Structure formats: structure tokens, C-alpha cells
């Protein structure tokens, strides 16, 4: 990829709210050039979304439960894992889905309000899919770091105000 375009991506990955004017200055380009690059990145489905990292545990009444479920499935002729993957990620409660190497095939990240809600999803929706052979559910107990962001204490700026 063009080095400037790559630089724009990296800046947005770091902070999706960086405005066009700032990006243009940082990358030594005109605002029009940056706009065109972003449109092209969006059209290419490289730049997919601009989301926020939120510590929901600090929001009262919004504390949810997140689980990672290891799923073993039987791949199907012609479509491999893709068809069953699609049937799983279409559920809105599925936040992420990855095909894995190793002891199981699919890793499903799921969010729910309660453990019971997730248990119901696993037993009623996930396990009942024909290709699914087995599931192992792990509940997340605490988030230390997510998407590169440390949740609790940062390191802060410890520098003195002036130094030569």
C-alpha cells in the first residue's frame, strides 16, 4: 500500500476521531488528498468502522457478561467452515468470531446481560446447530487491556516541565 495511505490508517487506528485537517498536517498532505484516501479505504472495505473503546464495568446498570466459547465443528463439503461461521456471526449477541488453529475450530466472543443469558444462547442456539460437535464456554472476569487500551491505571506523564 501507498505509504501515506498506510500512515492515515495507522493514525485512525490509534484515534478514529482524528480530524481530516489534523491528519493532513501530520502526513504532509492536503485535506482533499486525505479525504480521497479515506473514501477509497472505506470503499475497499479496509476501513470498516470507527468505534469507541468503553469500560462498561464503570457504567451503572450496564455491567454485562462476556464469554469466549471454543467451538468444535464439522467442516462441510464445498464451503468448509464458512457456512457455519456465517450462521453463528449473524446472531447479534456475537461480538467477534475467529477461525482458529489448534484444539478447536471457532472462537466465539459473546456478550450478554447475565451468565444465564449466555448459557441459554449456548444451549439453545449454538449447540443445536448441526455441524457443532462441542462447545467450551469461558467467562471473562476482568478486562485489563482491550484493543491496545489499558483499562485501569495508565503510566501518565512523569516528566518535569522543563529540561534542556
Amino acid at each position, binding site marked *: 500500500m501507498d505509504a501515506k495511505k498506510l500512515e492515515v490508517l495507522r493514525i485512525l487506528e490509534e484515534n478514529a476521531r482524528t480530524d481530516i485537517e*489534523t491528519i493532513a498536517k501530520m502526513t504532509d498532505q492536503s485535506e482533499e488528498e486525505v479525504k480521497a484516501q479515506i473514501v477509497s479505504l472505506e470503499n475497499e472495505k479496509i476501513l470498516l468502522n470507527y468505534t469507541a473503546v468503553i469500560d462498561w464495568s464503570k457504567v451503572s446498570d450496564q455491567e454485562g457478561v462476556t464469554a469466549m466459547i471454543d467451538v468444535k465443528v464439522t467442516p462441510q463439503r464445498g464451503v468448509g467452515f464458512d457456512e457455519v461461521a456465517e450462521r453463528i456471526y449473524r446472531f447479534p449477541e456475537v461480538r467477534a468470531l475467529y477461525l482458529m488453529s489448534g484444539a478447536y475450530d471457532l472462537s466465539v466472543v459473546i456478550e450478554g446481560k447475565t451468565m444465564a443469558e449466555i448459557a441459554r444462547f449456548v444451549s439453545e442456539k449454538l449447540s443445536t446447530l448441526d455441524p457443532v460437535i462441542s462447545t467450551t464456554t469461558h467467562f471473562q472476569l476482568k478486562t485489563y487491556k482491550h484493543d491496545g487500551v489499558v483499562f485501569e491505571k495508565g503510566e501518565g506523564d512523569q516528566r518535569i*516541565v522543563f529540561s534542556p
Partner: protein
Amino acid sequence: MTVKQTSRLSQAVQRIKPSGIRRFFDLASTMEDVISLGVGEPDFVTPWNVREASIASMERGYTAYTANAGLPELREEIARYMEGRFHVSYDPMEEILVTVGASEALDLAIRSIVDPGEEVIVVEPTFVSYAPIVSLAGGVCKTIGTKKENAFKLTPEELENAITSRTKAVMLCFPNNPTGAVMTKEELRQIADVIERHDLLVISDEIYAELTYEEEHYAFSRLEGMKERTIVISGFSKAFAMTGWRLGYVCGPEDIVSAMLKIHQYAMMCAPSQAQHGALEALKNGREDLERMVASYRQRRNYIVKSFTDIGLSCHMPGGAFYAFPSVEEFNSDAHEFAEQLLLEEKVAVVPGDVFGAGGEGHIRCSYATSLESLKLAIERIEQFTSSRK
């Protein structure tokens, strides 16, 4: 018995002027919500792998003195680095010395080569410690102020004019603190010709060598005929965000390095072992983090220089280090007054350029090694400040 207060302190130390930024430091520390562009160090914390390696060295019990010149494996790694990165080869056992920061290395270099009365040419504006170090060693400091119209590069004519029969050495710092100026191979060659003609030594402070944004740094000792008369001074502070570790090094001719080692072993014994273990990791596995930091400095350099230009501050594009050095001459105030009023009225801390010596008058040093949000806010406040003064 009464003590004569005047005789307690040496004349040498009394000759040294107190640091020019001390007053600003005291002023700023009484204020809240100050945005500081006055910090001469990276805003990154040392990469974790380096910190972890240092912690691990202590866990394994490496808490004793190291060899005076530094851990042999660290010197070997520095030699590999100088060869691979800057294409100059040094013997790790004879020509490299690990010091407590580049600051100690500068002091050792001057003390090793200067006799009382000999002159050392200091190319300014530059890092604040050169002149006091020369003076403490009994040397005489001759300054050259580089000029804005030359993009703060040293010209061979300026150097030629400063040389006398008593000149012993020249101190250079490119990429430069505070101007960010860099010099190309061709420009350095012209300087080297003058050096050779007058048979001088060079102390080349290359602490910012990794932080260049257009062209790769060209080491002064890489020029033909210069290695045998150049003391290269560098360290881990700027490139690897390790300022608090106090670890630097010297690469130079064997006779000078062993003279420096003589002073180092009596004055310092050795650099801290845990810092040396961290540095070893930085050199072995630090390249990716370094490149990430350089990319980030480059973006912030572009941002601050363009923003200064937008608000009408005249600022050349610095090729290296992490400082912008805009001119404030058009605001009818000297740099000190400008910086002080800016701090008091808008709570933005910058360093007046004359603190860094000749050629710095009428300029302010703004470190862009701070978060983009702070830079944005600082520029808004500076705009507020300057627009009321036009």
C-alpha cells in the same frame, strides 16, 4: 572561627552561569494546567521489553560493578550497531566506552583533550552543557552562532573565522538541540576539510542520530580522514526513550577513549549495571519500537510546523530531533520576555532560544514530544497570545 564565604567555592565553579531555564522551571512549577513544550525528552515511556530485561537482570543477581568501560557484550553490541546503522567500525574493547549518559561522555571528552587556555569552538545554539564543561576544564569557549538563513547549519567560513592558533577542538551537535537542524554528507565534508587543514579534534554529539525525518543521519566519523580525530558521543536517551536510565557511550580513537576511561574509572567506576542490561535489549530488539516512535515524531513535527505557519509564526522545517524553533522577532519582544508572558498569560511553557547560546536570540524552542491533544491546545493558546500582539 569564621569561614570566609567567598573562598569556599572554587573560582572555576563561580565562573559558571546558573542555568537559564531554572527561573522558568520555578515559575512554571507554581502554576497549574501548564502545557509544557519545554521538555527535552521523549514522551514515550521506555518500551516494556527493555524495562523487563533490566528487571530480569536484577532478579538474576546482576547487581555488581561491571567492567569500567561497560559490559563487554554491550560494547560489542554498540560496535555492531555503529557498523550496521552508520557504517563506521569501532573496536569494542579499545574504542568504545559506556558512560553515565551522553552528558558524562561530553565532560570526559573535554577533560581528556583540553589543557588550560586552549580554545574549544562550540557551535551554537546547542545543548546547554558544552560551554560550562569547557570552562570547568580550564578551556576557553569560542562560540559560533549559526544563522536562521542557513537553516542553523554550520558553514565552513564561520568555522574558519573562529579558529585561532590556540584552537584544540570543535563541538558539533547535529541533528541539533534546539534547532532541529541536520547537516548532509556534503555539508559535513566541507566542515571536515577545515578541520583537517587546521589539525583539530571534533566532539560530535550524535544523540539525536536516530531521530531524522528526511534523510538518514550521516555520522561525522564516517567522512574520510575524520574517524581518527572524532569523538562520537551518543546514548540511549532519545532513540530508545531512556532518559532517566542515564546511559550513553563514546566511540573514538583508542588513545582518547583510554584517557576518558582513566577519568571515568576514578570519577564514576562504571555505568549502572541494570541500565546496561536494559540497553543491551534495546539494541538487540528495539528497532521496531524505535521506528514507531520516529514515525510518531515525524507526524507531530509536520503538525506543529504547519500549525505555526498557519498562525503566522515563522518556522523552518527541522530535519531532526524533536524541536520546532520558530522566530518570535516580529512580536517586538526578546525571546525571554515572550516566553515568560506566554507562560503567565496562556500557561504554555516554551524555552527561550538564547538559553542555548549565540544564534538562538529571537527564537523559542518548542518540543513536540508531547501528545497531539496537548500540541493542539498549545497552538490554540499561542495563537491567542500572538494575535493580541500583532
